């Protein structure tokens, strides 16, 4: 395997809560995702999937272990620097899309450009191109309230790609959608992963979506279980 590592977790442990209410949400988790690879994470509720995304995305600092985004050791950074990494190297796709209600589809993407500095005409062109690639060029001026759930989720994917991320972190992207729309979204994620060469970590509940992933990780009680899926075995 010569492909560059996009995302790596090394012996990551995350303990949440305080005092005698402590919970080990992640227990010695290690994983590597190469650029252009789409890895799905499944597991029962409470198994630590969201925690894994939070730690990989720099939203939580792990109690132990290291996270690397491309060449950057996320765990060595201060809070503000982690925010900077999120800004420039990470794309998030959230459950139920999580768009800003006041912004048009195009502005959802332009917000990313604004947060990263002063946007140029090139940024706007990129935003339009991304919206086009998720089939929403014609709806660029619509706000979330004027878009369907599936369309919102596609805007969310386009937004996640706006900052040319190394890593795409996706949390249950289909939970609010019906089966057909959900399949579309996951297909879109898989193709965008290849097209943009990002390392994608996708949490999902929906077993029927797993065939689109290059690899599937199973989690239980904060641990990643040894590879069991035929595809995962094949990949190694």
């Amino acid at each position, binding site marked *: 395997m010569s492909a560059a590592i996009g995302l790596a977790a090394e012996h990551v442990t995350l303990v949440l809560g305080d005092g005698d209410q402590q919970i080990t949400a992640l227990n010695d988790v290690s994983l590597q995702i190469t650029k252009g690879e789409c890895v799905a994470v499944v597991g029962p*509720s409470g198994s630590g999937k*969201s925690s894994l*995304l*939070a730690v990989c*995305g720099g*939203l*939580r600092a792990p109690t132990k272990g290291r996270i690397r985004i491309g060449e950057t050791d996320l765990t060595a950074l201060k809070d*503000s620097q982690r*925010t*900077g*990494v*999120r*800004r*420039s190297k*990470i794309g*998030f796709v*959230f*459950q*139920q899309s*999580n768009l*800003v*209600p*006041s*912004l048009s589809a195009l*502005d959802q993407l*332009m*917000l*990313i450009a*604004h*947060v*990263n500095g002063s946007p140029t005409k090139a940024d706007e062109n990129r935003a339009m191109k991304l919206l086009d690639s998720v089939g929403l060029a014609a709806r660029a001026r619509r*706000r979330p309230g004027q878009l369907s759930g599936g369309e919102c989720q596609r805007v969310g994917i386009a*937004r996640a790609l706006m*900052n040319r991320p190394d890593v795409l972190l996706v*949390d*249950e992207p289909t939970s609010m959608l019906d089966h057909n729309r959900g399949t579309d979204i996951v297909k879109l994620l898989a193709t965008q992963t290849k097209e943009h060469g990002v390392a994608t970590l996708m949490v999902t509940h929906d077993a029927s979506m797993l065939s689109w992933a290059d690899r599937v990780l199973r989690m239980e009680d904060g641990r990643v279980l040894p590879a069991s899926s035929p595809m995962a075995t094949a990949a190694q």
Partner: protein
Amino acid sequence: MFLALRDLAFAKGRFALMATVILLVAFLMVLLSGLSSGLIERNVSGIKLMKATHIAFELDNIPSYTNSFVDKEMWEAWAKVPGVSAMTPTGITAFNARNSNGTALTVALMGVVPGSFMEPNVLAGATFASDPRGVIISDELIEKGVKVGDVIRLDRVLTELKVIGTAAHANIGHVPIAYAPLPLWQEATYGPPGGPPPGDELPKVLFDYASVIALQVSDPAQLKKADDEIGTVTLSREESFNAAPAYREEVLTVFLIQGFMIFVSAMVVGAFFAVWTIQRTPEIGLVKALGASTGYLMRDALAQALVVLTSAIAVGGVIGYMLGRYIDTTGVSFKLESAAVGLNIGLLLVAGLIGAALSIRRIGSVDPIIALGAER
């Protein structure tokens, strides 16, 4: 301001409500400022018209035009102080009086030395040169029905003043001024009722006293020293407003009302932005998760507050100003002074921004983890 302006447009209904309150406050502030300037103007217009740069009062903790009492020794000493280019003793006493036709009047009789810089500009009629027992009255007394040629008789002392001319609107302590030659003022203020007994003269000593010493100062360096030596307190003309009756109290009242309004608007703005910030917590968490720093979001929110406040204050201010211009023409004591209006409006804006800033601070405590969804 990318997000701020779009949020503003999106939630315009809510912002409009808050903006309306601020608009009304700005409107009231302009009118209140006009009223207070008008009130102050009515109190001290006579002092503003004085061609003195400084006024020396009898040494007192709270100098007062009407209570001050100075003597000849003092004003002769002041004449010799370096940096004082001219000085003239001046008397001020308020009298109840009646016009020839029986109308009751209150006048502030101001005794000035004829020919000194304190002699008023005569708008109509004659100057003191024509009649040593004549008075020149503020225009306001003309509006109250007094005419040139009338005789005003002071109550109790029964001194008769012949109106020989009129001067510009001049008040002190809200009372219109009648300018008299200093000896006539001294007679009315210190002399026996009804004037000297027939065939007799007033005692000379009467003419050695006045209320204050009006000064024209070219170099104020020696004033403090001279005050100490002579036993006076010297105030600049503007400082001496405080020595006019009720001036301090009026200014304090107006100041308290304005301060209270500014405080209340800061609270309104603060409360609004507190609620608004709490309501947009999910959005703040999301944008933080997407990589926006707390600083970016705070600047954005503060810019939003600035836009809302400036536009509301500008609209309210302009409406207030236009109404004020109209009121100005109606004769109500109202005066729009751009400096006073500007100061109040500026304070309103700053107070609003502080209120907003205090509420917006909570952006800092929003954890971007909330973007990951309902399960904490």
